[in-house]
């Protein structure tokens, strides 16, 4: 069952409190999104762990309900 853009944003914001999230629907099928997540809490954390923070925020949906999420993380 695909995911809604708003649900992805809500989950990420709930877990990474001070972040800005920009989500682009790449195919309109609820399965392929591009997300840019900007948060100061990424500072000093390597790329893999930054992405894992976002994946953890999605509570196991990444790779399951959500097939593809092109992800860019930034500190500002």
């Amino acid at each position: 069952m695909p995911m809604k853009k708003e649900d992805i944003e809500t989950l990420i914001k709930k877990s990474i409190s001070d972040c800005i999230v920009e989500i682009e629907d790449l195919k309109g099928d609820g399965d392929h999104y591009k997300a840019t997540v900007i948060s100061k809490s990424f500072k000093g954390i390597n790329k893999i762990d930054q992405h894992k923070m976002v994946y953890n925020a999605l509570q196991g949906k990444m790779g399951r309900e959500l097939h593809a999420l092109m992800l860019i993380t930034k500190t500002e």
Partner: protein
Amino acid sequence: MKMDTNTNVDVSQNIKNEISNSEVVLFMKGTPVFPMCGFSAAVVQILSDLGVKFNHVNVLDSDEMREGIKNFSNWPTIPQLYVKEEFIGGCDIVKEMNESGELLELFNSKGINISPS
């Protein structure tokens, strides 16, 4: 199909063997010649453009491998790139590193031969 503990142990050992026996190994969907997913194909293209020799594991060959590698790295998606037993990342990170030059630096620093085409 209930996965009994032996299968888990075998898969995890297979994964460790693949990673330790290869300087560069890409866990991917399909093969470098016939990638079965755009993200896997993108990483194959990056490695080929850099002229890096790499081994690959087609995770579509076994459900145990497909799930096992995600558990092994605690990373929810495929492809996954490993260089000298270190998990480098999936498609997004490898792409970002390639664009910033970090990937080339990584290979040089790890003594991996490259021959850009």
